[in-house]
């Protein structure tokens, strides 16, 4: 290769590579990047106001309204199964992903406003496919045995889905949790408005957070599949 051609080749290569590098370096300032943050980070860290962030969380059941434009809803941390942790309000004005709904995991990208609202421009959704260890969870039998003394306490309990008992949301009892896989033994009605985990079916062992009410219905804040069933 002659020297002149070689130098020119190197020169043009350098221009192309530097051009790419220059654009790459600028993507941050052009709003092409976002920091991964948790719901808790955003709720607590006030220095994030004005920043672009990406956050994933479960859509709080009943918090959304599709007809409002822009649409608003709330999310809480996926691991916040007791429903006691912080919540952030999301304002979203784009097309809604196909699987959006109660309990669905929404991964949002957007800017934090001074009032703590997330103004999101991008949303992708994942179906809830939740697993939780049944260790330390109270079996249905013990819960029922505890009777009155259990009422009003937030606990984690485990049982099997009574075959044929699952009904669509809207009913006071969504399904019955029974002691045995076949639906035998003592059982308790579970009230829940959110989306049930993917794969949950008759006989599935589930882990449920919530509290027993006066009327004997266990009102759940979260329903997961037991980890042994992964």
């Amino acid at each position, binding site marked *: 290769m002659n020297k002149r051609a070689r130098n020119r080749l190197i020169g043009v*290569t350098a221009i192309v590579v530097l051009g*790419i590098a220059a654009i790459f370096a600028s993507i941050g300032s052009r*709003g092409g990047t976002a920091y991964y943050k948790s719901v808790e980070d955003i709720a607590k860290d006030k220095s994030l106001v004005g920043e672009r962030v990406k956050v*994933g969380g479960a859509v709080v059941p009943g918090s959304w309204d599709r007809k409002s434009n822009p649409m608003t809803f709330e999310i809480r941390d996926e691991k916040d199964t007791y429903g006691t942790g912080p919540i952030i309000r999301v304002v979203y004005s784009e097309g809604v992903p*196909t699987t959006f709904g109660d309990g669905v995991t929404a991964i949002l990208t957007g800017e934090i406003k001074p009032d703590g609202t997330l103004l999101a421009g991008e949303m*992708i959704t994942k179906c809830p496919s939740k697993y939780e260890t049944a260790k330390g969870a109270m079996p249905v039998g013990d819960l029922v045995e505890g009777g009155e003394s259990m009422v009003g306490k937030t606990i984690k309990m485990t049982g099997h889905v009574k075959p044929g008992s699952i009904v669509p949301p809207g009913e006071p009892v969504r399904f019955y949790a029974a002691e045995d896989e076949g639906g035998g033994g003592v059982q308790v009605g579970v009230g829940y408005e959110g989306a049930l985990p993917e794969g949950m079916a008759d006989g599935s062992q589930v882990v449920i957070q919530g509290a027993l009410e006066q009327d004997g219905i266990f009102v759940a804040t979260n329903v997961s599949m037991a980890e042994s069933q992964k």
Partner: protein
Amino acid sequence: MLFVGQVFLGLWLLTTVVAIGALLWGRSLGAKQGESVTNFGYLATFAGTAAITISSLVMITAFFIKDFSFLYVVENHSTDVSSLAWLYTLSGIWAGREGSLLFWAWLIALFAAWVAYQRMDKTDDLSNMGLMVTNLVMVCFGVAMVFSDPNNPFKSTPAEWLSNGQLVGQGASLGMNPLLQHWAMILHPPTLFIGYAGLTIPFAFAMAAIIVNDRSKTWVEIVDRITVFAWLFLGAGIGLGAVWAYVVLGWGGYWAWDPVENASLLPWLTGVGLIHSFTVYRRRDGFKRWSIVQAASTFSLVILGTFITRSGIVQSVHAFQEDPVSKYLFGFMIIAPIVAVAIGLYLRWKTFEGNDEFESLTSKEAAYYFNNVIMLVSGWLVAYMTVTSALPTWMPFGGQSISAVSYDLIGRPLGVLYVFIIAVCPILAWRKTEPATFWARVKWPLVGTAVIFALLVWDWVVNLRPIYLFMIEQGGEGARKLQAFGPEIVYDIISIGGFLAGALLISTTTWLFIDGSRKRAKAKGENALSSFGSILVNARTQSGGYLSHIGMGIIIIGLVGSSMYVRDVIIEVPDKQGESFTVDDYTFTYQGLNEQKLTNGDIVARASFAVARDGRALGTVTPGLTQFARQGQTRLDAEVLSEPLRDIFMVWQGSEQGMMSVNVKINPLIWFAWGGFGLLMLGTALAAWPKKRPALAAAPAGKNR
């Protein structure tokens, strides 16, 4: 059954180890003394292929007879009852990780057997080592499956889930995800896997060429067809995935720079560099180091892509399962090829000195060189950008997620530059292009370019630019994505530049066909059309390449329209029959809702809208939603109405309190992208088609020239 599958999987792993040992031992004994040992290595390769074939057939049989003692069958069996049911049953093989690994390894074994069969009468040093490295890759897959439980396809189902061969209790709720039960699922993964598996072979022979210190083009000739074939399938897999995302999943587009999409794109990009480097290697005895580097990069990126999709290190629309066990193994397989080739090239730097003499930047060599630079840089840059969120914060954008607009910012100008290069490359001469020659070759194509470009600019002024202005005015996320490019002029230059590059590429390459046919017709005294036919048939590699280039030219026109100028609006209208609204020139008239309750309680709702343009009826669009009663989940079902120059993509977001919300996207020129893609595949298939005569030169391998 389970036991048989497991045993043959183990046997396969064993034979790959034996093959490696025999091939290395045979080599150390020398060509004469070691011949029988080397032959044994070939036999072991065939035996291994037979073993994993049995193993895979056991798995396939288990799916068809629904043998629920296989945990993998329980987890991935299809519950579909349509006429395609048997195909869904088959696709259970690649619906999960363990089966995908098995299927992939099986394909590599088939490629290995094919190569061994082709080379077994020669058993030359180069082929022996190529086969050895292929077996080495298979060992990694074998170890992953046999010694890491999460990857083992032959796990048994817990006894409590089974009763008389039927699934009970918890086990009864498992099966293939219903979203996957779609025709694209039957085609998309296996085509990708054929591509992934095939790309092992060029890497193996690049390593072999280093090991035996062979600078001749023999190794390239051995793997050239296989490489183009694998690259073709990889491309087809990417295209099918795009169609699936657009038409079925209703993500609103065909490409979202999702990590899983990127994963398949990475090796495709460096693969472009690889097959073009091979051309120079074969025809000009140059670009030797480039060929080796691209082969190793491509293989490494295949594994990196799989690692991204299977390790769960990056959040994506695709659901992931985490698997810490194979992290190290995959990590090794990503890094080892790069390290091995770096060391190899360091030691053999002089050997692979190519005939890369060229005198000027206006030469074919320079164009091929920039093709390599751009593809290598973009392949690794996209890889880096995809994994940034998993990287430490001191690295550029470490810990941050990079959104689609960033890829667009880099990819669009680079893509336009790239298309300009491939537009002029075929009309440049080797070494140096004289201005007079260039002018003679570019004269007529420039006329064609002017015509196509004028039409596109007219479309841009009348239809496309107004969309830009509209989206900016509308504000929100749509405007933000456009404004990331800075002032409007930057956006205009990129899109107009893309149109110009596409027009030029189509014209120059078409002219090559016309000119070639004319010259041949003159020389042979035939008519131009039959000359064109013979060029297509006889010079398959070259004509296939040119057809692919024309395809790329059409694709870029489609991409400029359908990715840069999408009109995206959300409209609220009263939920009343006969109510109408307009988007751009289209009038949508609501015709009512059709709700159906299925026996399982699910509700399928379809809203119909009559679409008209300038008073002329175009058809009816029926987007809707499905409510899965028991799960309490909803899925929106998008629908597309196609026109030659644009698609109308529509999502009905439901209706509440007398108002319904509708999302309409108008994607211009999208059919150019699909059509160009079809031509790209056709051209590549033509180039990959086997030659009548054995392509290999008779010259003995292993000799330095």
